[in-house]
């Protein structure tokens, strides 16, 4: 289980997160929503270790990973699909996927079938450079790459951005499939509310660097959540 406690985070002098606490459980999809610039991506970056925090703690699987390097968190099963894709532009699609081997022992180093089932286009473009792909294709690659690491915590930052509707649906199905396997905690940041609503087991709603609401879907009023997303 991911357990974030009173996290503070700064960009220079500006504070982006204020005492943020939240949880994400295995076998559940936790949806993090909020308007532009409230700090969702910042929180995810803190969780995967790309942005050092200035206070608070991040627990994963019972261990404190607050100070751990991103690579070590990846080795503990945390995988990240960043906002803006961040694929390796000059590596081929295949090589991009292979980078997912890094945290795996040699015996497990293979690309899971579900990657190509989910994103058949990747299969046909294995030798194309990642940077040459279209925006949506890159997004698919970024998700596929994360899946190669066999994560137990999958952190997704707006994974549907730029993706065609049919594949969004596929991604939705994939996420529920992964959740239903029950081995993975999924933390999803999503602006596309309908998509999020269909998947969310738990909600976390942020505003101006703070968590305003959180809890299981059953316990929260959807209108309440939406309120934080309107202008």
């Amino acid at each position: 289980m991911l357990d974030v406690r009173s996290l503070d985070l700064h960009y220079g002098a500006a504070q982006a997160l204020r005492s943020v606490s939240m949880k994400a459980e295995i076998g559940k999809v936790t949806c993090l929503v909020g308007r532009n610039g409230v700090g969702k991506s910042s929180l995810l970056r803190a969780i995967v270790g790309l942005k050092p925090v200035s206070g608070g703690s991040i627990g994963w699987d019972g261990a404190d990973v607050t100070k751990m390097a991103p690579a070590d968190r990846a080795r503990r099963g945390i995988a990240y699909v960043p906002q803006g894709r961040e694929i390796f532009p000059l590596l081929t699609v295949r090589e991009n996927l292979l980078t997912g081997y890094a945290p795996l022992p040699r015996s497990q180093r293979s690309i899971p079938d579900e990657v190509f089932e989910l994103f058949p286009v990747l299969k046909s473009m294995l030798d194309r450079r990642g940077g040459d792909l279209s925006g949506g294709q890159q997004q698919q690659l970024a998700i596929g790459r994360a899946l190669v690491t066999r994560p137990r915590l999958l952190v997704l930052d707006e994974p549907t951005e730029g993706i065609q509707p049919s594949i969004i649906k596929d991604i939705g199905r994939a996420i529920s499939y992964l959740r239903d396997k029950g081995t993975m905690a999924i933390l999803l940041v999503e602006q596309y509310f309908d998509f999020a609503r269909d998947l969310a087991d738990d909600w976390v709603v942020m505003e101006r660097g703070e968590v305003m609401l959180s809890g299981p879907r059953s316990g929260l009023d959807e209108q309440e959540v939406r309120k934080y997303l309107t202008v």
Partner: protein
Amino acid sequence: MSAESTLLYLDGVSVSFDGFKALNSLSLVMMPGEMRAIIGPNGAGKTTMMDVITGKTRPDTGTILFEGDTDLTRLREAAIANLGIGRKFQRPTVFEPHTVWDNLELALKAPRRPLKTLTYAISRDDRSRIEEILDITRLSALRNRQAGSLSHGQKQWLEIGMLLAQDPKLLLVDEPVAGMTDAETEQTAELLCSIAGKHSVIVVEHDMSFVRALGVKVTVLAEGSVLAEGSLDAVSANQQVIDTYLGR
């Protein structure tokens, strides 16, 4: 169809990368004041089409005319932009070291020659225009922030603002609402509708509710050429479009 009286005229445009045809004899016509939504699978060639129009990529074959007689394939990017073609990129690209205000000031319609910019002094009109855009994009409070420190969505807005400031005849808008909340999406749709008429707009989006809100003719691109064209409802009913794009 003749190119006269059209704003933008694409005929038989093909582009290939190392043998891969990103655009395959694409033809498309835009009238002055028209707004068009373009949808299509990832990799269909939508962004490539904008690259070709704006001079970023040179087509292998095909005709691209602006306002009936200007051959865009011969012009460099800056010249094309100066004809009145503005663009918002799929990935928000803003001038990160500059403040939000300066970003808009740079985008603002004004002479582009070096010596003119050297002696440029901002006028009252220009000032109020920027204020207005800040207002529209809800960035007023962030006007002195460095663009580099904006969040993803904020940058999207800034880029839309820059496009407005440029005041082009033709706006090419690549995925404007990616990363926006549903409410913002609606606003953006309204915004685009309000500028159409005076301007021509090509919008690329995957968000169907947004496309629906625009309420304009839709062109579906697939594998580098036009698959279907018509109202959103019409194309949505097209089985091919459903299979390759919308899904079930």
